[in-house]
């Protein structure tokens, strides 16, 4: 195996791996600071933060160091490469570079959104000089709030790493961002009248290592050190981007992509990034209800749930096939689908299991785009047309219990023809999943149970309404388009009155103990061969692929 020597520590790298000095040092547990380098973008080696001493260990054991410092990002390592990142020469270069970067920086950390997660702050603290020797006035550059609908630029905070420019050229392909002017007067800007509003635009804010590009949505909302982060999965489409949910005091403030080579890579789209507002919508269902003939019988969870159990048990006396239908939304987690399917079959072995409406919008949206707006190869990011997170997971459960997946359109037809008497809908899709016309068909039902997130035409007609939780408020598993099962975690508590869906179904099923996703995953794995990979219980940071029983090799991103 090729061996690289980082600060006197030998570290082995894979024989086919192509690493630069920064990556090799990371393997050795050392950090080489860098700004402009990003593993998904081209190498420009312009910030000069990652300058290190590089040399080569000859077969005879002697070490020949290059006289000049080399940018670690630009220098590939091979067997015998020697990297020194802690010599006086390197430390002096880091100090100098940081002093340069801060020369014209306004140092307005107290009012800067990035403070607390800022590359300039962190590196200045770790590698910087601590003071500036500039006595002259700083350059003043105008703020640009027109960069994009969601993006604003504090120009004077910018360190000209050009990550944003390269992102729009190489990943989105839309090339809105550019550098204007020259030398110290350089600024990031857009072409006049062409704002950065592509569907991946929000990523430039994440890529910005300082507080220059800021999200208008998040601007001045929260100091980042108050935020608590939980790993989760974006439910916006079947790509299943790994994300973090950042909240404080049960208020969700932002979603950020979390790097996962098996899911989406490093980025996420703006539909997902800004599309979570329904979680805090005032249309959230917050009261369990039992209705009868237009009258509210109860609004108490205990009463509603026990009454529902009784009602469903009564129903089970009618052993006629197809009269009781359970529709499980592709927004439900694997655990919820399993609990409900199992419960339905226990209550009534002839219960028919259907998948809720699978919403698709247009075609898969592939990036980067070429100059004509057409996708160009290789694909680096895909926003999928299937706007739900877990169709594959729900289908796996339905296939197991029933051998087939009944589409929701068939259910509506059957209801319309009068062959269905009772319907239990497990929802979760924040977009209207049922039209008024379709909802009118539900009038024919003797029993309608709606467990959902938001009020809908269906919840208005339901005999039982069970207010569930949003994806950010519960534990569970989503299986993406590629069969990658990822865990979602409870980032915040839902509004008072709502309950995590797993818990509701757990109680309804009469199970003892508490809902615990990992234990339930093991149970599911032992029962459903297609989901055997969930047997690990803890799916880890990156999830597991259903096609194997262990953690998978990285899948192609996109």
């Amino acid at each position: 195996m090729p061996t690289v020597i980082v600060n006197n520590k030998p570290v082995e790298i894979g024989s086919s791996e192509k690493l630069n000095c920064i990556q090799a040092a990371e393997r050795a547990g050392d950090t080489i600071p860098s700004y402009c380098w990003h593993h998904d973008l081209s190498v420009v080696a312009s910030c000069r933060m990652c300058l290190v001493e590089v040399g080569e260990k000859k077969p005879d054991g002697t070490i020949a160091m290059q006289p000049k410092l080399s940018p670690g990002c630009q220098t590939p390592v091979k067997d015998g490469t020697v990297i020194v990142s802690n010599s006086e020469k390197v430390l002096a270069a880091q100090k100098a570079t940081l002093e340069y970067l801060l020369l014209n920086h306004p140092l307005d950390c107290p009012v800067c959104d990035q403070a607390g997660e800022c590359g300039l702050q962190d590196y200045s603290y770790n590698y910087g000089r601590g003071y500036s020797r500039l006595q002259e006035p700083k350059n003043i550059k105008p703020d640009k709030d027109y960069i994009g609908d969601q993006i604003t630029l504090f120009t004077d905070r910018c360190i000209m790493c050009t990550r944003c420019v390269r992102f729009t050229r190489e990943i989105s392909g839309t090339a809105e961002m550019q550098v204007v002017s020259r030398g110290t007067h350089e600024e990031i800007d857009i072409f006049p009248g062409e704002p950065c509003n592509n569907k991946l635009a929000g990523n430039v804010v994440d890529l910005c290592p300082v507080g220059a590009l800021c999200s208008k949505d998040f601007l001045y909302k929260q100091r980042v050190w108050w935020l608590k982060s939980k790993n989760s999965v974006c439910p916006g489409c079947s790509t299943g981007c790994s994300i973090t949910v950042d909240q404080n005091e049960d208020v969700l403030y932002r979603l950020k992509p979390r790097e996962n080579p098996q899911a989406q890579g490093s980025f996420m789209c703006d539909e997902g990034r800004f599309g979570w507002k329904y979680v805090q919508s005032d249309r959230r269902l917050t009261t369990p209800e039992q209705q009868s003939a237009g009258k509210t019988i109860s609004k108490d969870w205990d009463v509603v749930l026990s009454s529902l159990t009784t009602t469903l048990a009564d129903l089970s006396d009618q052993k006629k096939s197809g009269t009781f239908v359970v529709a499980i939304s592709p927004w439900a987690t694997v655990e919820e689908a399993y609990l409900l399917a199992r419960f339905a079959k226990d209550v009534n072995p002839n219960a028919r299991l259907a998948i809720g409406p699978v919403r698709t919008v247009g075609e898969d949206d592939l990036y980067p785009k070429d100059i004509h707006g057409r996708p160009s190869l290789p694909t680096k990011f895909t926003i999928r047309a299937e706007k739900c997170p877990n169709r594959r997971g729900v289908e796996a459960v339905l296939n197991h219990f029933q051998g087939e997946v009944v589409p929701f359109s068939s259910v509506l037809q059957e209801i319309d023809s009068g062959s269905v008497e009772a319907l239990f809908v497990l929802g979760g899709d924040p977009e209207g999943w049922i039209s008024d016309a379709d909802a009118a068909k539900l009038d024919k039902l003797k029993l309608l149970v709606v467990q959902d997130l938001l009020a809908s035409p269906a919840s208005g007609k339901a005999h039982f309404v069970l207010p569930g939780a949003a994806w950010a408020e519960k534990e569970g598993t989503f299986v993406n388009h590629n069969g990658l099962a990822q865990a979602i975690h409870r980032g915040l508590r839902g509004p008072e009155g709502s309950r995590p869906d797993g818990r509701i179904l757990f109680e309804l099923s009469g199970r003892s103990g508490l809902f615990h996703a990992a234990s339930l995953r093991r149970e599911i794995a032992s029962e459903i061969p297609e989901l055997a990979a969930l047997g690990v219980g803890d799916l880890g940071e990156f999830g597991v692929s259903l096609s194997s029983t262990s953690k998978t090799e990285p899948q192609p991103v996109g």
Partner: protein
Amino acid sequence: MSTFEPTLLARINKPDSQLLETYRRDGGYEGFKKALGMAPVDVINQVKDSGLRGRGGAGFPTGLKWTFLPKDHPGPIYLAINADESEPATFNNRILMELDPHQVLEGIAISCYAIKSKKAYIYLRYEYGRSYRALKNAIEECYAAGLFGKNIHGSGFDLDVVLHRGAAAYICGEETGLIESLEGKRAWPRIKPPFPAIEGLFRKPTIVNNIETMACVKQILDRGADWFKSIGVPPDPSNPRDAGSYGPKLYCISGHVNKPGCVELPMGITARQLIDEHGGGVWKGRNAKAVVPGGISMGFLSASELDTPLDFNGPGKVGCLGLGTAAITVIDDHTSMVDVLFNCARFFAHESCGQCTPCREGTAWMHKILARIRMGEGQSRDLDLLNEVASSMGIIPGTTICGLSDGAAWPIKNAIKKFRSEFEEYIQTGRKTVKPSDALMEVH
């Protein structure tokens, strides 16, 4: 020396020297014809044997550079001619292009044949309107005469020459900045490797050569490698890295002299000879305080160093970065070195492309410090600060992608070293060259 006959500039004073007709009458394009009868590798060898070193400033051996191209490359190879001539006080390329463009074009044709390139791009700085018109006309004449185009003289060799006008920036003279600019991009120098000979213009192997180098190539083909080697200075035995400084060189003389201009002389002439024998002496009967040997990034020769031979090896011995473009700028003893250095710093701050942090911020910072010193607000520690900034951005440790920051840092370090007492006196007496308001206007 008195027997030296100019060759590169031999035709410039003739009437209609820029026309193909007169050029042919003087034996023009015979060297190209001769080359077409040779194997390309023999042309390369002849240039190699001549010891020709690039005239753009770095002095890299031209023939050696050509051999860096991949052997038997199947795709296109390009020749890019650097006619950006953006080094201050340098104007020898301009004279060649305006007054003898065919000499340059013949050199280009020969070089293209040697490196098997079918396409040459001339990257011309925007300000050179007369050069543009002269070259454009000359290229059209060549196409009409069958000297360019398909199957030249039945040799099977095709050649297209494209004249491209830049948009005026110093950095476009850096070879990879030039390539980026030719591709239609911002002229940000590329990281190397890969070097242009492997991956250059449009990601194809590319040789970048200077205008004067092309004229030399033409003369070498006409007169032979031995003729070229008979002129100039052989390698310095005490410097193993010196490849010698052969051939005639166009020296530009400007600044405080009575007779500024461009003269062709054998390599190795001294600054004093240039001033006294060719520049008419320092103006107004004054003495020279300092001489820039070849572009301001090279540093300064002090009055006691004027006998330094201006070959590729000489200026380095007295602390200059090198010969550079061999364009001397004479500074008389009435001029403040603070003002000179401020001008240098202003130039580099204006011309830094802004890609690398040390250069982008360092050049502007040095400019601001010098502006403050000129406002009478200098402090003695400023000189050490200038030195430190210059050291951290240039040469040692070589912290940037291209050489601009090295070039920006060198005159600062060099001037403070050689003229420190003058700087200290300026600061301590609180002299003011400018009103604060003017200085601020310049900085911002």
